[in-house]
């Protein structure tokens, strides 16, 4: 036990790194391929079969580029910011339950840990934008902060709802409650809250906003802010931000899978396993891509209006409804 444990953790760290790296690379490929198909194009085809080696070529290109630090920028923060996006994202993988037996650590406050680390992302992007000494980047940094603050609230409200339903912060435990089949999934648990699908949608929207994905990509908004906070980053500096962004999407979709879609449980109750988890997670990721290539970007105050005027009241409503639904049966 004492010898095995550090090795096991190490293996998981390496595994998580590899998983994030491969995911970031191949989600780019998937994104480009899917974007192509959504737009009636073929997407990447030239590098390797069906363009499968394209991410490798991209990575080599990014790595060979010079890292430029703009004069007058805060060099330390400028260099640290990409790391600050990547590292917390890696931490979050520690507790994600890919299957009953596949998880680095089964932590009792797993959910809390993920959100604690997840919120560091904001600061990293903000510091990256601020330290770049670029006006576009600074505007973007300001946007990122207000956007993330606004969306953290409805997201956590939905999480509280889920905690009340599940009664635990342990992700394994939450998944195990839903193992019976798709009718037991939290998203369909109408008995404890008739607005459960709405809660799921709110969570999903907030997840999009938190990860700065279209239609909420105010931070990058290339037609307004060139590349937003990443304007001055070159080569792998940008690459790490990029990987961090995709890692955050993977985490967001993984949490959504575990919380709402029954994690590794199969929809019919038989044959649970990691493949179900991955299938559900990648379906959500595909939806994220699908949404990006369908909608235009929202306006900034429209985004905040959506959060403060629609999402927060509705998530509060679901919270109240859930607490009523939980409390009332216990009164009798």
């Amino acid at each position, binding site marked *: 036990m004492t010898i095995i444990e550090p090795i096991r953790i190490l293996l998981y760290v390496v595994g998580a790194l590899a998983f994030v790296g491969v995911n970031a690379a191949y989600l780019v490929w998937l994104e480009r391929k*899917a974007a*192509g*198909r*959504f*737009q*009636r*194009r*073929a997407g990447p*085809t030239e590098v390797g079969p069906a363009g499968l080696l394209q991410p490798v070529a991209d990575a080599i290109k990014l790595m060979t580029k010079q890292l430029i630090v703009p004069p007058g920028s805060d060099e330390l923060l400028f260099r640290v910011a990409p790391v600050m996006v990547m590292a917390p994202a890696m931490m979050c993988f520690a507790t994600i339950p890919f299957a009953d037996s596949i998880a680095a650590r089964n932590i009792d406050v797993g959910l809390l840990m993920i959100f604690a680390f997840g919120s560091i992302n904001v600061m990293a992007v903000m510091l990256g934008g601020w330290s770049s000494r670029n006006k576009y980047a600074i505007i973007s940094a300001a946007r990122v902060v207000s956007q993330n603050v606004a969306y953290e609230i409805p997201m956590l409200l939905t999480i509280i709802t889920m905690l009340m339903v599940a009664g635990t912060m342990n992700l394994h435990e939450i998944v195990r409650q839903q193992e019976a089949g798709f009718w037991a999934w939290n998203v369909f648990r109408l008995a404890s809250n008739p607005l459960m699908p709405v809660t799921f949608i709110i969570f999903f929207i907030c997840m999009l906003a938190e990860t700065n994905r279209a239609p909420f990509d105010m931070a990058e908004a290339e037609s307004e802010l060139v590349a937003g906070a990443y304007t001055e980053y070159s080569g792998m500096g940008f690459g790490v931000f990029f990987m961090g962004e995709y890692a955050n999407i993977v985490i967001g979709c993984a949490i959504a899978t575990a919380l709402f879609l029954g994690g590794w449980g199969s929809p019919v109750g038989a044959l649970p396993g990691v493949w179900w988890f991955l299938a559900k997670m990648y379906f959500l990721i595909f939806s994220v891509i*699908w*949404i990006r*290539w*369908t*909608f235009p970007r929202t306006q900034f105050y429209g985004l905040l209006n959506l959060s403060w*005027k*629609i999402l927060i009241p509705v998530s509060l409503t679901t919270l109240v409804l859930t607490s009523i639904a939980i409390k009332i049966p216990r009164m009798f």
Partner: protein
Amino acid sequence: MKNLIKDSVSGFKTLVVGMRLTIDQFFRRPVTVHYPREALKMPERYRGHIELVRDPETGNSLCIACKSCEKACPSDCIFVEGIKREGEKRKSPTEFSLDFTKCSLCGSCVEVCPTDALRFTKEYNLASTERSAYLYDLLRRLEGQKK
């Protein structure tokens, strides 16, 4: 309040409609052509750079070196020189060069030609790192085609 809910619901519906449309396109065949592997046929009237037309009987150019094209050209990219050879009724060109770097493919030269001695080629994939690659000697080009 009621309006807000109504707007939210109908707005959400438009989003769903949009997503349905894009996924519908997702499963259709791409419309693009993979250019270097397959290429479209150039239409009959495609305007590439000009070339001289050969007289089917003599095998020489139809050009009579009247310099109409040279005069008509808005960008001064055609240079014609001709002499009257013995035993021939009309002049024939000794030099016919085209500076394709200046040409705007307007077709004035082709239209103005009294003997229809000029026509457009269908060449579109020209690339070079040197300007001199586009100084065409059209007479030599015609000679080259003969062989």
